[in-house]
């Protein structure tokens, strides 16, 4: 077993900072990257060593494999943490590091490659007896056979163009009598759109939920799950509210899903952190969707309910350490929620917004976690992902966690640009969300309810006050507070 002394973080923003915090706790030095454009962002100065990648397209900076490997050698790092996105699931990067003798804090290349390809991963799952969405993907396109297959799957079914995308050649069929007509028109549309009328048939899930399970495996054949996260609330296929535990699972079903995820990890001979994503139907059936072979954006909710630091576990596993705890010792305690704050306008089709952050905010609650890559004065540009921050709260139960999140959102205005903060609070306030009726079509179904409301009387009054009281001098009682905070300026009448 080899203890890491220095680790390069091949990422930026909030995730680079989050990883660096754990490295710092463990006494491991961090090497962090930034670009010319990011000099003012906190991640540029957060690590023990900072490398300026200059300017240019991502392919020349964060995604330049040769360059990153050379930097690893130059800085003599023991390992690389890839974060999420960027090079975190790129086999060529993993191979290049291995060749250079640098450990990737991530899964074996074989697992990364197998799971990176949707077709391969589904074949592996089928062999291992993992439930997949029932469907017909065959070459025989004879209409009588397709109808029989649809009957076998059970209605409603979804007809999809094999070459498809963008909803073209797609039909939802509610009952057997309608199948013939729907198939004909789907095939016609597919032929026109893609020049190929081949279709596939899948079970259509009316009210799906997105349930995922956090797994962690060491290099000694031990596989664990860290329970589930529900991430059904999504906009533009991106998660915006995530929670653990899921409000939709009873304990037997929860254990069944989590055990299935562990079985997948075993099948893959997996190592490191991974997430197995499932689609959950109303009747409790669940189907494998995909496996992400990296740390997830929403990992903090799992950390909050289990008390484990997942980055710490990743590092330990990568060092070759054996995880000595037992599955029974991983307990899901209380309830955690994460929301993703985006620089965007939900009332204008979630259009990304830009601007200068005048004031991030400050929590007035106990134990609120803000994972962000920004600080006061930073410019938000279109160059990078519009996610400003992840706000995470924990409380003893779901109701109090929702209440806490509503208050936490008040404390972090990210003033200066348009954000989805108010929109998130509208979701949290929605009666169906409170009842736990969170399906992946939530944002679409309740589109009307989630529109901007008029100001209440109190909000209007406070707006009037706010429009006036910022005139005039800064600092209480007519004084400008410019001196930095410290004992000499805050002690008041006390004498030392």
């Amino acid at each position, binding site marked *: 077993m080899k203890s890491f002394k220095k680790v390069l973080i091949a990422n930026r923003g909030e995730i680079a900072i989050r990883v660096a915090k754990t490295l710092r706790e463990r006494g491991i030095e961090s090497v962090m990257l930034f670009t010319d454009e990011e000099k003012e962002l906190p991640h540029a100065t957060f690590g023990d060593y900072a490398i300026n990648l200059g300017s240019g397209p991502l392919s020349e900076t964060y995604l330049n494999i040769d360059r990153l490997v050379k930097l690893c050698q130059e800085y003599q790092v023991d390992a690389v943490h890839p974060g999420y996105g960027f090079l975190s699931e790129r086999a060529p990067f993993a191979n290049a590091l291995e060749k250079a003798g640098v450990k990737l804090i991530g899964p074996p290349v074989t697992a990364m490659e197998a799971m990176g390809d949707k077709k391969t991963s589904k074949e592996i799952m089928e062999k291992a007896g993992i439930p997949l969405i029932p469907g017909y993907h065959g070459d025989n396109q004879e209409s009588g056979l397709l109808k029989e297959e649809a009957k076998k799957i059970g209605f409603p079914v979804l007809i999809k163009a094999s070459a498809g995308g963008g909803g073209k050649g797609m039909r939802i069929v509610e009952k057997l009598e309608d199948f013939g007509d729907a198939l004909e028109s789907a095939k016609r549309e597919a032929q026109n759109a893609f020049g190929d009328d081949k279709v596939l048939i899948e079970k259509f899930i009316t009210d799906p939920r997105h349930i995922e399970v956090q797994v962690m495996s060491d290099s000694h054949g031990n596989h664990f799950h860290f329970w589930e996260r529900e991430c059904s609330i999504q906009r533009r296929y991106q998660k915006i509210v995530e929670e653990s535990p899921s409000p939709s699972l009873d304990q037997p079903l929860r254990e069944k899903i989590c055990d299935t995820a562990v079985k997948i990890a075993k099948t893959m001979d997996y190592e490191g952190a991974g997430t197995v994503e499932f689609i959950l139907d109303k009747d409790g059936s669940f189907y494998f969707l995909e496996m992400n072979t990296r740390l997830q954006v929403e990992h903090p909710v799992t950390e909050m309910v289990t008390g484990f630091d997942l980055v710490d576990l990743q590092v330990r596993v990568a060092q070759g350490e054996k995880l000595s705890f037992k599955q029974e010792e991983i307990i899901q305690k209380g309830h955690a929620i994460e929301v993703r704050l985006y620089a965007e306008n939900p009332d204008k089709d979630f259009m990304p917004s830009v601007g200068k952050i005048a004031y991030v905010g400050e929590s007035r609650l106990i134990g609120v976690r803000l994972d962000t890559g920004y600080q006061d004065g930073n410019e938000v540009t279109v160059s990078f992902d519009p996610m400003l921050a992840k706000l995470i709260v924990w409380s003893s139960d779901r109701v109090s966690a929702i209440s806490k999140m509503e208050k936490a959102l008040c404390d972090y205005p990210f003033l200066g640009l348009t954000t989805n903060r108010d929109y998130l609070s509208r979701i949290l306030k929605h009666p169906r969300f409170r009842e736990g009726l969170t399906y992946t079509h939530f944002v679409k179904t309740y589109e009307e309810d989630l529109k901007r409301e*008029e*100001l209440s009387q109190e909000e209007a009054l406070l707006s009037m006050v706010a429009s006036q009281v910022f005139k005039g001098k*800064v600092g209480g009682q007519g004084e400008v507070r410019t001196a930095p905070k410290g004992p000499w300026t805050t002690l008041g009448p006390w004498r030392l």
Partner: protein
Amino acid sequence: MLKEWKFNGVEYKFDWARKDDNEFTLESEGTSHKIQVVKRVNDHVVLVNVNGKNHLLMKSGDLISIGPKTIEALDSRSRQKGAKSAGEEDMSSPMPGKILKVLVSEGDEVSAGQGLLVMEAMKMEHTIKAAFEGVVTKVYFKEGDLVGGGVDLVDLEKKGE
């Protein structure tokens, strides 16, 4: 003084009266509200007491934060459509700095584009000019004062209103 503001696009009229630097009265729809500035936390955060209850208010440029809501706040009187650039049209400080010169007094009639204040920020001088023709109703600072960014420096009322 009668104010007309738009919050999230909705027009509100109210009367704002100053008792001293920290105490004000706001009258809206026949009701009078007692306002006290308890603490100016920083450029963007003020703790106010409204009718006996404390509220934390935040503001930057045209955006106000009330609870979880970020509200667009526009002065219907002094702002024409599209006039947004700080320091040019809205007579606020473009960035934190120091007031070098005050060129006008309250009650002065000014023409559009006339210099009102000179401030220094980032080692450069900026002249804050009148956005339109009018009467100076309030000058918030004197020479040598330090100001934050985005702070209103002068109130100007349009002529004939």
